[in-house]
C-alpha cells in the first residue's frame, strides 16, 4: 500500500517529518473523536429503545442529523489522512444517509437479498427483508422448547422485483395524479386493476425457480409438501395493526404455491387494506410484504393463546381458545370454540373452562388440502385439548413472553403425535389504562425486605425476578440455568450466553459500557453493574426481584413491579415513535464489517453508519502501521530513545507536553515522561517478574531480546529497521511495537473526564506457526475481555477497545497492558497446547508473571520428575 507518510518522511528533513507525523496524528485524533461521537449517538439511540429516555419524533430527526454530520466528518478525516484513498466510502455514506432519511420519511426501503430464505436462517435483524411476522417466527425457531414448522420466506426483495415486473408503479402513479375526489372514486378500480396485473403477470424466473427448490427441500425434511402461505408485511406500522388485513392461504399443495403467492401479494392492494392505510394517514397504495411458506401441521387441535387477559391484565391468567382440527374457526371467530383460563404459575392449572358444542372440523385431508368435516354428535362437547396439553401450551407461551419481553398473542397447533407447534406470535395489545386502585409502587420497600439499594449503576432498565445464581470465577457458563437472577463478580464476557437467558443480572465489578452490559440491553435483561457487594449480599437470598429502574433488590417475588413492567412495555413499545426508532436503528447500528481480515472488509460493503466508522478507524490505524517505517537520522533530536530497565528499545516522539524538558542532551529517563498513558504502560512494563530473565532460559531470552532490541539506530546493513515508537502528548499515546514479528498498537487518551477516555489495542502476527499464534491471540482476547475490553478479530488478529473509564480505571488497565506486553513477549514458544492458554491466562490474572521464565510449578515438577 503506497503511503504518503513514507514519501514524506523519506524525502524531507527530519523536523518536517515530525511535523507530518503531528498533522497525521491530529487528523487521527479528530477521526477517533468523531468516531466516538458516532458510537455515542448509536449507543444513546440504543438506550432510548431500552426505555430510559423520553423522546418524540423531533428528537429522532435531530438524532439522524447529528449522526449524518459526525459520520461525514469521519469519512472526511480518513480521506484527509490517506490522501483520498477511499472515495467508495463517500458513496457508502450517501447510501446510508438515503436509507436513514427514507426511514424517517416512512418510505419503504428494501435491501438487496436472496429471493428465498429458509426460515431457520432468518431473525429479527432481517426484518426489512422478511417482514416482522417471519422475522419473529425465525427467532422463535431458534428458541429452545419452542417448535416452529419448517418453512421458507419469499423475501420483500423478491416481491419488489415482482411488483416492478408486473408494472404496478405506473398504474399507481396515474391514480395518484388525480384530485382527492378522483382518487377516492377511483380506489376500487385501482384495486381491481392492480390485482388483475399481479394475477396475470409472469413471475420472475429466479423467483419461481427458488420457490420450487425450497419446496423440494421442505419435502425432503418430511411432510407431504403442503404449506400455509402467510403474508409478512414490511415497514409501516408493522403487522400488529394490519392483523388479519392480508390474505393467508392454508393447505396449499406444492404445485399451487406460486399462485397462492400472487394472491397473497395482491392483497397488498385490496380496497379494504388501502382504505385502512388512508385512515391511518398513510399512502394508500404504498405497501410491501414478504411471504412465508410453512409446512402445514396436520393439526388435531389448534387455536390461540393470550399470555394475559387483554381486557384486564392484572388478573394474571392465560387465555386459550381451542378448536379441533385447524385453527381457522378460532382465528376467524366463525364457530363456537372451547375457551380456557390457565394459571401463569407452574404447573398451570385450569382456572376456568367453557366447552362449546363443536359440530364441524377443518382438517388437513388428502394431499394436504384443507377440508371441512362434521363431528359426530357424541363427540361434540368433548374438550379439544387435555389439561396436560393446556399446561404445556401455557409453559411454551410464557417462555415466548419472556423471550419477547412483552405479553404475546400466539397461534398454535397440536398434531396427531401430540407435538405442539407455534405458527405465529405477536405482541398482545393490552387495555391501555390499568386499574389504578391500591397501586402504590413507591411503597414496595415497606412490603418487601430490601436486600440492596442504590448500589452500582443501572446498565439496562427493567424489572426481573428469579432465584439468585451466583457465578464464581471458574464456573462454566453452560451450567447457568435459564430464568435466574445472575449475580457475578465481574462482567466477564464469558457470561454473555447466560445473560441472554437470565431474568436479571447484577455484577460486583464492571461498567455500563462493557460487552456484557451491551448484551443485556440487546436482550432487554435488567442489569445493574458495579454493585460492589452483590455476590456477598445476595449469596443465600433465594428468590429475589431486581428493580433496575429504582435500583433496588427485594427479597421474594414482587408481583406488583413485574405486572407494572409487563403492562407498561406493552403500552409503549408499539407506539409510532418506538417503531420508528427501531427501524432507524436497523439502518444505523448493525455492524456487518467485524473482521478486518474478512473477505467483505471493503468500503463498498459498508451498509450502516457503524460499518462506515469502523472501516474508517481500522484503515486510519493501518495507515499508522505504514507510518512507523519512518527512519530517524543521526542527530535527529525529535526522536528520543527511552532508557528502560528492560530489553526494549523505545523511541519517543513528543507532540507537545508528553516529555519534561531536560538540561542536557543525555538519554531520556522514564521519570521525564509526562504523558499519562505512556507513564502507566511503563509502570506496567517494569512490574517485577513481568519481564522474565530467568537463568534457565538464557538462550531463549537471548534469542528473543535480539528480536526485541530494535537495531534502528545502528543499522548498517540497509535492511528495513523495526522500530518501537511512542508518539505522545500530555494526555495521549500512540504506541507501536514491533517485537519480533508481532505488531502491536496501543492508542489511548487519558484524562480526568471519563467520557473522553479510551484504549485501543491491536495485535497481529507472531514468529511461530499459525496455531501457536492463534493461541497467543486467544490468550490476549481472554485477558483483555476480563478487563472489560470489547474484543474482536479472528485468527492471530486481536482488536480490543474500552472507553469511558474513570481515570484510575484507565491507569489500572494501561498498567495491565504494560505487564501484558512484557508477559506475552515470548509466549508463542511456550504455548504448547490449548490447555496452556488457560494456564497462562490464569497466572496473569493472579499476578504470577514468572511462568514465562519457565519457573512455573508445572514445568518445575516436570523437570524434577525427569531428573
Amino acid at each position, binding site marked *: 500500500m503506497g503511503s504518503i507518510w513514507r514519501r514524506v518522511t523519506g524525502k524531507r528533513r527530519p523536523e518536517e517529518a515530525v511535523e507530518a507525523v503531528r498533522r497525521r496524528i491530529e487528523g487521527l485524533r479528530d477521526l477517533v473523536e468523531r468516531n466516538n461521537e458516532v458510537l455515542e449517538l448509536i449507543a*444513546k439511540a440504543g438506550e432510548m429503545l431500552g426505555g430510559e429516555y*423520553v*423522546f*418524540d*419524533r423531533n*428528537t429522532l430527526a435531530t438524532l439522524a442529523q447529528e449522526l449524518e454530520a459526525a459520520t461525514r466528518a469521519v469519512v472526511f478525516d480518513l480521506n484527509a489522512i490517506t490522501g483520498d484513498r477511499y472515495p467508495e466510502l463517500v458513496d457508502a455514506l450517501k447510501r446510508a444517509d438515503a436509507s436513514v432519511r427514507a426511514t424517517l420519511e416512512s418510505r419503504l426501503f428494501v435491501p438487496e437479498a436472496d429471493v428465498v430464505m429458509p426460515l431457520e436462517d432468518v431473525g429479527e435483524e432481517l426484518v426489512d427483508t422478511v417482514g416482522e411476522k417471519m422475522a419473529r417466527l425465525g427467532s422463535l425457531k431458534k428458541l429452545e422448547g419452542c417448535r416452529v414448522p419448517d418453512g421458507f420466506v419469499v423475501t420483500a426483495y423478491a416481491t419488489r422485483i415482482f411488483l416492478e415486473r408486473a408494472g404496478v408503479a405506473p398504474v399507481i402513479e396515474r391514480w395518484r395524479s388525480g384530485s382527492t375526489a378522483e382518487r377516492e372514486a377511483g380506489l376500487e378500480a385501482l384495486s381491481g386493476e392492480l390485482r388483475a396485473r399481479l394475477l396475470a403477470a409472469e413471475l420472475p424466473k429466479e423467483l419461481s425457480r427458488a420457490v420450487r427448490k425450497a419446496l423440494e427441500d421442505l419435502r425432503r425434511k418430511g411432510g407431504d409438501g403442503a404449506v400455509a402461505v402467510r403474508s409478512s408485511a414490511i415497514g409501516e406500522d408493522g403487522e400488529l395493526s394490519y392483523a388479519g388485513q392480508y390474505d393467508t392461504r392454508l393447505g396449499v399443495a406444492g404445485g399451487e404455491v406460486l399462485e397462492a403467492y400472487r394472491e397473497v401479494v395482491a392483497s397488498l392492494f385490496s380496497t379494504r387494506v388501502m382504505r385502512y392505510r388512508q385512515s391511518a394517514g398513510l399512502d394508500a397504495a404504498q405497501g410491501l410484504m414478504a411471504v412465508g411458506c410453512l409446512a402445514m401441521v396436520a393439526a388435531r387441535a389448534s387455536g390461540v393463546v393470550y399470555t394475559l387477559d387483554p381486557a384486564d391484565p392484572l388478573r394474571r391468567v392465560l387465555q386459550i381458545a381451542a378448536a379441533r382440527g385447524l385453527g381457522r374457526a378460532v382465528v376467524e371467530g366463525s364457530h363456537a370454540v372451547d375457551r380456557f383460563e390457565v394459571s401463569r404459575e407452574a404447573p398451570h392449572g385450569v382456572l376456568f373452562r367453557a366447552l362449546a358444542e363443536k359440530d364441524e372440523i377443518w382438517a388437513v385431508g388428502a394431499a394436504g388440502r384443507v377440508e371441512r368435516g362434521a363431528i359426530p354428535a357424541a363427540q361434540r362437547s368433548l374438550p379439544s385439548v387435555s389439561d396436560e396439553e393446556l399446561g404445556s401450551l401455557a409453559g411454551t407461551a410464557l417462555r415466548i413472553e419472556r423471550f419477547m419481553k412483552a405479553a404475546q398473542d400466539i397461534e398454535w397447533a397440536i398434531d396427531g403425535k401430540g407435538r405442539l407447534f407455534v405458527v405465529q406470535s405477536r405482541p398482545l395489545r393490552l387495555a391501555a389504562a390499568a386499574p389504578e386502585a391500591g397501586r402504590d*409502587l*413507591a411503597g414496595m420497600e415497606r412490603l418487601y425486605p430490601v436486600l440492596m439499594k442504590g448500589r452500582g449503576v443501572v446498565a439496562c432498565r427493567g424489572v426481573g425476578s428469579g432465584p439468585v445464581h451466583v457465578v464464581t470465577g471458574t464456573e462454566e457458563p453452560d451450567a447457568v440455568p435459564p430464568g435466574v437472577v445472575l449475580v457475578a463478580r465481574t462482567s466477564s464476557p464469558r457470561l454473555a450466553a447466560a445473560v441472554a437467558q437470565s431474568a436479571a443480572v447484577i455484577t460486583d465489578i464492571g461498567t455500563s459500557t462493557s460487552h456484557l452490559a451491551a448484551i443485556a440491553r440487546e436482550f432487554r435483561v435488567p442489569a445493574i453493574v458495579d454493585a460492589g457487594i452483590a455476590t456477598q449480599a445476595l449469596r443465600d437470598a433465594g428468590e429475589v426481584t431486581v428493580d433496575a*429502574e429504582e435500583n433496588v433488590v427485594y427479597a421474594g417475588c414482587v408481583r406488583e413491579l413485574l405486572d407494572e413492567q409487563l403492562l*407498561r412495555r406493552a403500552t409503549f413499545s408499539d407506539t409510532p415513535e418506538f417503531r420508528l426508532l427501531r427501524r432507524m436503528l436497523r439502518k444505523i447500528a448493525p455492524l456487518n464489517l467485524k473482521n478486518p481480515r474478512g473477505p467483505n472488509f471493503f468500503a463498498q460493503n459498508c451498509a450502516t453508519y457503524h460499518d462506515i466508522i469502523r472501516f474508517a478507524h481500522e484503515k486510519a490505524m493501518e495507515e499508522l502501521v505504514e507510518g512507523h517505517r519512518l527512519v530517524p537520522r543521526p542527530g535527529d533530536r525529535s526522536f528520543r530513545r527511552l532508557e528502560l530497565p528492560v530489553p526494549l528499545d523505545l523511541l519517543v516522539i513528543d507532540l507537545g507536553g508528553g516529555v519534561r524538558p531536560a538540561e542536557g542532551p543525555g538519554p531520556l529517563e522514564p521519570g521525564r515522561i509526562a504523558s499519562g498513558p505512556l507513564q502507566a504502560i511503563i509502570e506496567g512494563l517494569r512490574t517485577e517478574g513481568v519481564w522474565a530473565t530467568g537463568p534457565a532460559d538464557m538462550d531463549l531470552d537471548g534469542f528473543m531480546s535480539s528480536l526485541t532490541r530494535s537495531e534502528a539506530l545502528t543499522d548498517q546493513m540497509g535492511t528495513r529497521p523495526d522500530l518501537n515508537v511512542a508518539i505522545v502528548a500530555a494526555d495521549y499515546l500512540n504506541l507501536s511495537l514491533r517485537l519480533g514479528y508481532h505488531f502491536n498498537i496501543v492508542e489511548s487518551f487519558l484524562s480526568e473526564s471519563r467520557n473522553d477516555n479510551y484504549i485501543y489495542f491491536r495485535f497481529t502476527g507472531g514468529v511461530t506457526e499459525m496455531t501457536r499464534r492463534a493461541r497467543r491471540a486467544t490468550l490476549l482476547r481472554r485477558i483483555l475481555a476480563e478487563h472489560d475490553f470489547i474484543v474482536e478479530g479472528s485468527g492471530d488478529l486481536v482488536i480490543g477497545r474500552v472507553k469511558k473509564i474513570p481515570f484510575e480505571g484507565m491507569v489500572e488497565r494501561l498498567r495491565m497492558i504494560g505487564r501484558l506486553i512484557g508477559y506475552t513477549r515470548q509466549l508463542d514458544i511456550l504455548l504448547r497446547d490449548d490447555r496452556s492458554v488457560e494456564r497462562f491466562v490464569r497466572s496473569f490474572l493472579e499476578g504470577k508473571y514468572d511462568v514465562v521464565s519457565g519457573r512455573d510449578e508445572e514445568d518445575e515438577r516436570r523437570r524434577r520428575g525427569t531428573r
Partner: protein
Amino acid sequence: MRGKRRILILDDEPIVCERLKPALEKSGFEVETYTDSQKVIDRLTEEKFDVLVTDLKMQGPDGIDVLRFAREHAPATKVIIITGFATVETAREAMRSGAADFIPKPFKITQLRDLIVSLTGGRTD
C-alpha cells in the same frame, strides 16, 4: 400529613405523556397529563399542583404562556420546561420567566424524577 406530591404534565406529543405518567407514578407521585395547553391553564386555577412539567412549542398558548400564567395564578407550583429545541436563548427566556429548571429532550426519566424530588423536597411528606 399530606398525600402524594401532585404533578401536572403538558406536552402536545402524546408519547411524552404516555411515558412520564406511569414512570412518575411508580416513583410515588400523583400525575395528570395533558396535550392541550388550555386545559392545563384551567386545571391550574381549579386545583393545587406541586410541579408543572411543560413543553415549550405548542399550538395555542405555548409553554412560556403557560409558565407565565402559572407564576401569576399558582405561584406555589414549580415549573420545569422540557423542549426538543434547546438553545441558550430559549433556556434564558424560560428562566427569566420564572421556570425552576430547563431540560432538553431527549432526557432520562430518572433525571426528571430526581429534579422533581429535589424541587418538592421529597416524594411525600
